[in-house]
């Protein structure tokens, strides 16, 4: 076990845990954002650089600070390590720069993009980025590609997180797509548009943090915030069958896997569940999906609040906040 302090909050985690995962065990604001790291895919991380944190004390034995900001998803904790995330202005400044870099070639076509409203890059830019762009040159552009008959690839929007190639590598048995070329010219390719026809290939839509890979059966059907997400399941011989149905009225517009609070899928679903069962009678609906209050999808979304769970979460947060000074109340004379 290793004792690590992140933003003044101490926690004991097993050896070999990454800083990012240690922060996630604490939860709340101290969790660094991640665009490429994916907990259910092996060897992801280290590519997008948004999870950079400052290590002010390497370990109890060697208390020197690390010379540069480190990627928290790829750096493991040491006993006695002290990490700064949101308490370090240097980290916030660096993150702002990283967001600007990610957006350099991003087309910013959110009004068209089907991912808008549930896009990690949109959230990241909103929380950490600058309001204005300084980029005046032409952005790199690619033609749209059909990956199979169910997936559309908008290479313009891709931030090269490599998550989808890890899905192809680890979830399906023969990988037919990867990243071609280098640097600015890198692009996801299916080796001359070879169809991805594996039972779990649809999961690359869910792992894509931006709108580069989108569901063609849902393409331009409805904006995500006008749909109602419902938890549902069915007996599926291939996968767990636990999904989210995105409905409009009685109509099922889209089926996705369930994502956790860090927008990561824990149980992948098969293509049959995703594409072939767009009928409410095929599913057993459990109830409305929990949607974060801050999300645009939560508009007109009603769900039962689990008071027990809420109380537990508040108590857990209070435990970590113990001993920290409370924010000053607003003065009336100011």
């Amino acid at each position: 076990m290793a004792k690590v302090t992140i933003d003044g909050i101490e926690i004991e985690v097993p050896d070999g845990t990454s800083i990012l995962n240690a922060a996630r065990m604490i939860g709340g604001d101290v969790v660094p954002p991640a665009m490429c790291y994916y907990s259910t895919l092996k060897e992801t991380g280290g590519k997008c650089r948004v999870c950079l944190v400052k290590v002010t004390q390497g370990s109890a034995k060697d208390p020197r600070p690390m010379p540069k900001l480190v990627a928290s998803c790829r750096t493991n904790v040491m006993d006695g390590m002290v990490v700064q995330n949101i308490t370090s202005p240097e980290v916030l400044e660096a993150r702002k720069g990283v967001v600007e870099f990610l957006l350099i070639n991003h087309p910013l076509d959110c009004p068209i993009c089907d991912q808008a409203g549930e896009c990690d890059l949109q959230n990241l830019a909103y929380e950490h980025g600058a309001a204005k762009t300084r980029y005046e040159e032409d952005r790199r552009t690619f033609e749209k590609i059909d990956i199979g008959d169910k997936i559309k690839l908008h290479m313009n929007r891709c931030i090269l997180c490599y998550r989808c190639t890890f899905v192809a590598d680890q979830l399906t048995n023969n990988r037919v797509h990867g990243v071609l070329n280098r640097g600015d010219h890198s692009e996801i390719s299916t080796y001359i548009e070879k169809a991805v026809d594996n039972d779990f290939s649809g999961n690359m839509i869910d792992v894509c943090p931006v709108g580069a890979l989108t569901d063609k059966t849902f393409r331009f059907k409805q904006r995500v915030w006008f749909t109602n997400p419902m938890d549902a399941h069915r007996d599926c011989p291939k996968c767990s069958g636990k999904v989210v149905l995105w409905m409009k009225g009685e109509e099922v517009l889209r089926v996705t896997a369930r994502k956790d609070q860090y927008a990561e899928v824990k149980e992948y679903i098969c293509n049959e569940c995703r594409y072939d069962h767009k009928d409410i009678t095929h599913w057993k609906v459990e109830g409305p999906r929990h949607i974060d209050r801050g999300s645009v999808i939560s508009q007109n979304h009603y769900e039962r609040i689990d008071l027990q769970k809420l109380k537990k979460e508040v108590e857990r947060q209070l435990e970590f906040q113990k001993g920290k000074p409370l924010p000053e109340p607003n003065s009336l004379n100011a």
Partner: protein
Amino acid sequence: MESLSNRSKVVSNKEMTFLERIYLPAVLSGIAITIKHLFRRKATVSYPEVKREFSKIWRGHHVLKRDDKGAERCTACGLCAVACPAEAITMTAAERKKGEENLYREEKYASVYEINMLRCIFCGLCEEACPKEAIFLTDRLVYTDFARDGFIYGKDKLVEKVDERIDVTVRQTPAVLEFKKHKQLSHNK
């Protein structure tokens, strides 16, 4: 209890004086007020012949703008509908086909765009939400009708005609007008 507004008056039921009982002074003062108003400027105008001047930023009948080349600017992003407090706006998106580049500006467009003018409260939040400068409120009036169906305005009534452009520059903020000047930025290409 003490009044909060201090505007309430205590009603008294006191006996009227002789002058009050004959009512004549009160009637005469009433007539005087009526005669005075005959010589005042009229508060009304006789509408179709005379029209009132509108404020420059009057919020009336919406317009869906076209760009300089005549292509529709709306991409059916749904931000106006989500911003609309009256839920008056609905739309259906469609994908632009090859050869329609001169009709629609982006790869997605609104195949159906409807505003229910009975629901609309003309608050202007839709034009504020629009990221594509597609929807604006204009100084045109929404006409009356006897049936409710006629108040659901589709694209036929909302999209501006290619040969009858509607000038909305007065409605754009100085920041937007300044931003549009920079022709080298990809946004304005």
